[in-house]
Structure formats: structure tokens, C-alpha cells
């Protein structure tokens, strides 16, 4: 087990190196002189030199990358170009809990609904109910979020016009403002997880030990609950990584269309202001979220499934 975990840790280091190196390098290659941009019309060579030194831009790139990494290890994400001398972290720290909340709620919701839909579809295999559920799941999986959002808004609007209870379509803070964005963000994952869960269920249901359990007279319901479900849920752990990746890209669209002040929203704001350090930091944080999720999944899987430890 330790051998597997240490191998995972090694690949984790490689992933972290790749993410930091590429984010650094892309920003390093960014065209234009950020200091000149920042200073605007006031051409003061002393201040220019001061700022250039403050941002470390007078160093060779390898040194810049080194100090960038060093700063990262000390929890320093650098300084904003747009608001000189303000640390990036001060600009985005408010967005982190918002995005985290949104993402975790969406993940929990999509796991709940996705697993339920997948299990039901598998139990009803090859009936119209199975076909119906899987068609909806295929639609949720393949229709992009920016198409689902206006649809959800239109339904919400129709409810409002009919005098029925409806939800706010933008903003963040009140509990009712959370529901729509979480639903939309979860949509793609629900489809993805349901399809996986159905396959996993069907695969386990074909196993010999299920036939044995049936043959010794266990009621089907008990077999499903005790033998099929516990085995079919295991592979689901592996999708947490890809599911988080879905959420990260989805968060950009959802946060911007719903005007939610999370990481994705702040990133797009800073893009308009050419504030590269902020873009860099948000990219890094989001990539880290996925990396951490992947690592947690690996550890959980090694603990949950003894077969992995033997291989």
C-alpha cells in the first residue's frame, strides 16, 4: 500500500510541477510590459525600476520561477498588476469559500441524483423507464451549461408569471440564490455519474457471487442492497477527479452568468483588466482543487478496495 501511495505522491509532484511551471511560463511570455501598463502616462524611471524590482521582473526567468515557487510555498500568490502593491490573495480570498461552497454542493447533489438515477436505470434495465432515464442523462451530459442556464431561467420566469414560487436568477448569499446555480453546475455531472453507475451496477449484477447469493435464497432486494450496491459504488470513487474537473470549467460559466463572486468570476474580471498574476493564481488554485481531489480519491480507493493493494 505504501508503495502505491508513494508512487501516487511522485506523480502528484510531477503534476504540481507541471501546473506551476506552465502557469508561470504562459504569464512570463505575456506580451507587453506590465509595469509600463501599470504606470500609465507617468514615466518615472525611478518608480519604474522600483516596481520592476518589486515584481521581480528584473530577474532572469529561472530565478523568477524559483522565487515564484518559493513564494507559493509560503502562501504568497504574488502581487496584482491592476492594484499595485496589493497581494493577489487579498483580491481573491473572498471568492474561495464561495466557489468551494458552490462546487461541493454541486458535487454532493450530482452524486446523490446521479447514483439514484444510475441504480434505478440498472434495476429497470431494458424497459422504457431505463431508456427514459438514460435519454435524460445523455441530454444533461451533452447539452452545454450555457444552454441549460437560459432554459432554467425561462422555466423560472414562467413559474413567476404564473404566480407560483420561483427562484432568484442571480446573486449570491441567500439560500434561495444557491439552488439554481448548484442545479445547473451539477447537471453535466449527474449525467456522467448516472451513466457510470448504471454500467457499474450491470457489471456487478452479472458476477457469479450474485447468482450464488440468489441461489441460496436471499431475496433480490437484500442481494441488491448488500452485494450489488456495495460493490458497484466502489468504482464511483474514481470519477471524483474528472467530476471535479467538470465543476471547475463549469464554475467559470455558471459564476459569470449568475453573477456569483467566486474564483471563476474574479478570474474573468481580471482577464478584462489584464491582471495576469490574478489569472495565474486562480488557474493554479482551480488546478490544485482537482489535484487534491485526485489524491484523496486515490487514498480512499486504496483503503476501500483491498484488491488494489495486492496488485
Amino acid at each position, binding site marked *: 500500500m505504501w508503495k502505491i501511495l508513494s508512487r501516487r505522491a511522485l506523480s502528484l509532484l510531477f503534476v504540481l510541477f507541471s501546473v506551476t511551471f506552465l502557469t508561470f511560463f504562459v504569464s512570463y511570455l*505575456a506580451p507587453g510590459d506590465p509595469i509600463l501598463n501599470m504606470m500609465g502616462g507617468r514615466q518615472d524611471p525611478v518608480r519604474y525600476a522600483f516596481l520592476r524590482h518589486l515584481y521581480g521582473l528584473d530577474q532572469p526567468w529561472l530565478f523568477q520561477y524559483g522565487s515564484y515557487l518559493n513564494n507559493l510555498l509560503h502562501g504568497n500568490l504574488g502581487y496584482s498588476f491592476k492594484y499595485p502593491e496589493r497581494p493577489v490573495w487579498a483580491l481573491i480570498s473572498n471568492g474561495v469559500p464561495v466557489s468551494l461552497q458552490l462546487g461541493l454542493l454541486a458535487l454532493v447533489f450530482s452524486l446523490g441524483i446521479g447514483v439514484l438515477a444510475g441504480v434505478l436505470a440498472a434495476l429497470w434495465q431494458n424497459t422504457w423507464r431505463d431508456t427514459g432515464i438514460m435519454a435524460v442523462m445523455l441530454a444533461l451530459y451533452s447539452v452545454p451549461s450555457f444552454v441549460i442556464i437560459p432554459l432554467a431561467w425561462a422555466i423560472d420566469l414562467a413559474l413567476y408569471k404564473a404566480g407560483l414560487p420561483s427562484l432568484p436568477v442571480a446573486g449570491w448569499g441567500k439560500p434561495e440564490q444557491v439552488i439554481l446555480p448548484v442545479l445547473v453546475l451539477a447537471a453535466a455531472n449527474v449525467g456522467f455519474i448516472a451513466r457510470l453507475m448504471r454500467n457499474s451496477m450491470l457489471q456487478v449484477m452479472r458476477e457469479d457471487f450474485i447468482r450464488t447469493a440468489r441461489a441460496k435464497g436471499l431475496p433480490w432486494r437484500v442481494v441488491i442492497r448488500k452485494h450489488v450496491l456495495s460493490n458497484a459504488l466502489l468504482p464511483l470513487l474514481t470519477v471524483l477527479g474528472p467530476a471535479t474537473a467538470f465543476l471547475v470549467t463549469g464554475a467559470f460559466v455558471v459564476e459569470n452568468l449568475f453573477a456569483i463572486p467566486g474564483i471563476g468570476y474574479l478570474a474573468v474580471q481580471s482577464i478584462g483588466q489584464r491582471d495576469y498574476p490574478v489569472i495565474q493564481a486562480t488557474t493554479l488554485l482551480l*488546478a490544485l482543487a482537482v489535484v487534491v481531489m485526485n489524491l484523496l480519491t486515490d487514498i480512499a480507493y486504496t483503503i476501500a478496495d483491498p484488491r488494489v493493494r495486492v496488485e
Partner: protein
Amino acid sequence: MSLNAADLPTGQTHVQNNWWRRLFHNRAASISGIFVLAAILLALAGPALYQNTLPSDQSRTRDGVYQDYNAINAGPSAQHWLGADYLGRDMLTRLFVAVGVSLLVAFVVEFLNIFLGGLLGLLAGYFGGWIDMLISRAADMLFAFPGLLLAILVSAVFGTAAREAYGGMGRLILVAGALSLVSWPLMARLVRSETLSVKSRDFVMASRGLGASDFQIIAAHLLPNVAWLIAVAATLDVASVIVNEATLSLLGLGIEEPGASLGLMIFRAAGKLERFPLQVFIPAAAITLLVLAFSFLGDGLRDAFDPHSS
């Protein structure tokens, strides 16, 4: 006695010779194929055909850039078949142009994907060793970024410069380049593993035994046997490229005004959904249909080439 071609032992070659027939019998895939062809034709010829149904002195009101102040946010009419947007620009022409942009970006990305991802995957799988090491680690580095993140970063950082240097086309090429950074590692990985399995087959061994060079083996044996995989993967990837391009444009990182993109059209009209729902739902329907069509076509191609897969 004569030797009949049908009596010869058949294998992969036979399967691959009849792929178009199986594709044709797959209803979802053939309808999707026809839809894709129609979309390509409309994107190419649609604007001109549509403009020329008006007398030539009026046709520029439908050029998709002309702002018809009498038709701002107008619904469908004889003048503007799908209405006009918030600046009075013709929606149908902008839709044609936007679909064209989606397809053009997808075309450029898949071109890079096939030549970069396909070739690198082939080389990595065939030669192994340090070449494989180099290519696979490079792909892994790009894989470290979840989803669109790297494309977002790249188009955010270089977007302004691309516009200043090369205008709208510069942005388009940048978007395509950024998106292919996300696409090619997957292609390379798929082609690499298929190459590994083809390489160990007997006919490759026989060919090497007869003294064929690496280049001959790659060109005569490996390439024909991984080509179907490349075609299937590229077709399936088009669906995600179309969504990704729209996402970038929606976030203000891709195609900019006055250019047209499905994502941009949805974004511009989303705030006025209540009053002018058509302006949102027309591009939304277009992108959904395009994505579904390419997915079904890709699935159909895969089943046609590899009937055992489903």
C-alpha cells in the same frame, strides 16, 4: 478453379472496407452526417444566398454587421427571417457566420490534433524509449490542467496581443491553438496505445523480418491501422471543441464583436431572455444540435470501424 475474393480470410481489413456501409445503416449517424454536411454548406453559402433574396440595394441590411435601427430586437419578419439582435443586426446571417466560426475553429483544432497528436502518438508508440518518455511526459504536463483551464489561461494572456496584431482572425487562431493544447494529449495517448497493440501483431513482425525500414512499417502497416481511431477520436472531439469555443467566447476570451460566435450570441442576449427569448434560444438550439450531431456521428463511425466495441 478460381480463387474468389470472398473466400480469402478476412480480418480487420474486411471490416474496415465496409465501414461506410455500416455507417449508412446506422440511422442516428447518417442523419447526423447529413446534418453536419448541411451545416457546413449553410455556413459557406448561407449568407450569400440569403442576402441575394433581397434586391441588391437592400441586401447589405442582412450582412450581419449592418445595424438596422428600425429592427432593433425585432422578431422574425420578411426582412429579417429570424429577427434582429440588440444592434439591429440580422440574426440569421449572424447565425450562419457563428456556425461557420464554430466549424472553422473545430477544423483548425482537429487539423492540429490529427497531425500533432496523431503523429506524436504514433512515434511514441512505435519507437518507445526516450522518444516515448519525452512525448508522454509532455502530454502528461498538459493533462495536469483540468478541463478548459489551460485554454482559458492561454487565451486570457495572449488575447489582447492577438487582436492588436492580427485582428479577429488572430483571436480565432489563438482560440484554436489554445483549444488544441487541451485536445492533442488525449489524441496522442489514444494513438500511442493503439500503435503499441498493432506493433506487436504478427504482420508487423513479418514485415520487419523481411527487412522493412521503420518508415515503411509506419507508413504501410501502422498508419492504415490507426487511421480509423484517429478519425473517430477527431470526430468525437469536434463536439467538445465546439462547446469549448463557445465557452471561451462567452467568457470574453474568444471571438469578439463584431465577429459572431454562438457563445457570444447567447451571452449578449442572456440578460434580455425575458423579452427576447428567441435571441438566446436560436443559437442555443444551433449549438446543441451541432454537438449532438458530431457525437452521434463519432459514435456511429466508431461502431462502423470497430463493430465489437458496442
